[in-house]
């Protein structure tokens, strides 16, 4: 059988990726520019016996999928900035209670109602630090529909592997643009399924005692093990405690299980990086313009390369540091006030060589914009 080829919006590519990954429960609330994901789910999920639930708001949407994840389902919700703001408390709950789930934020201009039908990448730091308290988070992004599909599948794999919420930070341009998507055959992309406990009924089960590899085998609600799930600091049975040793141990576990595996979670693509003397770092729809500039300059012999990030959090500091070590300049192309540029500055040996090429007016940054920034950086003026 040939792979199925479709001409779709990025939002549909995300929905298709989720279904490929085994999603069978979605709850959401309509919001531009993410709504097509919910619409797609409402059509597709009942066809496979899955459930689509339209909740009263975004808080309820994330709450509902956390509930459904506990019964063993792969779950997702999708939203945009204002809805993502509302979800932050429940996102922290999923971090604390270690609930696998995927949260899509198709970014639009903010703050507040902002620029609902226009592109932005302004929620990068919100994805990292939107919920209160120390924690680690995984956030992925993509610049084209094939990659949107792929990182969506990976989001589910990471959520299951590390028992964590994963944020998919797409943007309005990728979400609404139409282009080709080839659906991989089943099995072409490996899937991580829920790790279930092998502890039999009647034997003491510790839902929050990590195995040696750090993973936590789960028991479904409704199954033979009855345990407690809480947003409070808790012991290995899930019961609340304020014992300082246990509090510190759990917090360390929540951070370490992500940060210590950042090399495994790091997804990125390299274009013409081998001999690049100047480097662009970009992600999402901005990376499309960045790639255009790189290819154009290469055709004229200029040693310009692109490092396209797909994993934004945990930030791949080592990858960025290593790839940028010999570069004369590093220009971060993004549609915000420098949220990833700050991380790049923290990663490289010489922050002075890091520049920001950005646009924050709701319009996709163009190759011409980037070329102009490069000319200024190189001291040539526009």
């Amino acid at each position, binding site marked *: 059988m040939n792979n199925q080829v479709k001409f779709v919006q990025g939002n549909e590519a995300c929905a298709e990726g989720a279904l490929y990954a085994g999603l069978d429960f979605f709850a959401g609330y309509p919001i531009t520019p993410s709504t097509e994901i919910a619409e797609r789910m409402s059509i597709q999920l009942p066809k496979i016996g899955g459930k689509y639930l339209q909740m009263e708001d975004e808080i309820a949407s994330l709450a509902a999928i956390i*509930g459904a994840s506990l019964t063993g389902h792969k779950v997702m919700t999708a939203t945009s900035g204002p809805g993502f703001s509302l979800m932050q408390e429940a996102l922290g709950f999923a971090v604390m209670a270690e609930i696998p789930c995927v949260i899509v934020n198709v970014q639009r201009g903010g703050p507040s109602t902002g620029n609902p039908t226009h592109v932005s990448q302004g929620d990068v730091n919100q994805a990292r630090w939107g919920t209160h308290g120390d924690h680690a988070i995984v956030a992925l992004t993509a610049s084209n529909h094939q990659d949107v599909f792929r990182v969506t599948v990976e989001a589910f794999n990471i959520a299951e592997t590390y028992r964590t919420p994963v944020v998919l930070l797409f943007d309005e341009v990728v979400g609404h643009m139409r282009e080709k998507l080839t659906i991989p055959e089943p099995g072409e992309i490996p899937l991580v399924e829920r790790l279930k406990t092998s502890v039999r009924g009647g034997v003491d089960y510790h839902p929050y005692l990590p195995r040696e590899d750090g993973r936590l085998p789960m028991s479904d609600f409704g199954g033979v093990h009855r345990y407690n799930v809480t947003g409070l600091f808790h012991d290995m049975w899930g019961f609340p405690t304020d014992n300082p040793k246990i509090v510190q141990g759990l917090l360390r576990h929540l951070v370490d299980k992500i940060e210590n595996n950042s090399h495994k979670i790091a997804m990125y693509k390299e274009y013409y990086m081998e001999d690049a003397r100047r480097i662009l770092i970009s992600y999402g729809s901005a990376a499309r313009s960045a790639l255009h500039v790189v290819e154009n300059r290469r055709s004229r012999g200029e040693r310009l390369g692109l490092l396209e990030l797909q994993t934004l959090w945990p930030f791949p500091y080592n990858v960025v540091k290593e790839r940028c070590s010999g570069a004369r300049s590093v220009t971060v192309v993004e549609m915000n006030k420098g949220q990833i540029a700050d991380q790049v500055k923290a990663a490289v040996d010489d922050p002075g060589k890091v520049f920001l090429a950005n646009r924050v007016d709701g319009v996709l940054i163009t190759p011409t914009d980037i070329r102009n920034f490069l000319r200024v950086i190189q001291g040539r003026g526009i």
Partner: protein
Amino acid sequence: MAIRDFLRERFFPHMWCPGCGHGIVLNNMLRAIQTLGMSKNEIAMVSGIGCSSRISGYVDFHTLHTIHGRALAFATGLKMSMPELNVIVPMGDGDALSIGGNHFIHACRRNIAMTALVMNNRIYGMTGGQFSPLSGYGTLATTAPYTNIDHGFDVVDLAISAGATFVARTTTYHAKQMADIIREAIIHDGFSVVEIMTQCPTYFGRKNKLGDASNMMEWMKDITTPVGSKAKEENPDLIERGIFVQKELPEYCSEYNKVIERAMKGRS
């Protein structure tokens, strides 16, 4: 099965204050469950935040202690994903009707088969006695030192208007009735709301000079009357207790199964 078999006894004595009505709710909720002959594995309890919500930690079911006000939303996802689970959602009055008010009315509207227990002690106890949306006009609280000017909700009227298909009210004084009503609520195939008037002697009682826990229970006996009683006609200020609504309407999970059937038929 004795009700102690439903408890996680290692956490007793519980953390509630002496005389707190929440323990009476726990006591009689378990008596109701005891009569139903369900296995503990068939029951999930989902709660939010507050004194009332700590009830989930004490029972040996599948227990999910969530965030403030959102218990019904978590429970809706849990129930939809596994409709064979019996889902019970105990909430305080602030949890259910202030921060969680929106989830409350929408859960009523959907008619999803769950049991919402509103443990109404008319105060925020865990934070130290601030007025709640159920405190009522003219009461005193730590944040209403010059008397409260906020009017309260009528939980029963609200639930009925929002579409709940089982709506009842009882009190901790009427413990036997409470167990009977909770039993009916759990077996009802739709969204059930049971308001349980309960005493907070530590804050509501003390602030409003209502005496000790026993005095507060006596008071709840005096200010309530069975639904449709003559006494209500003579004294309209009396609060009715009993079952107000108990009707059959299509249940949400069953309705969604019809959606699945339609979607599968539509597929070529």
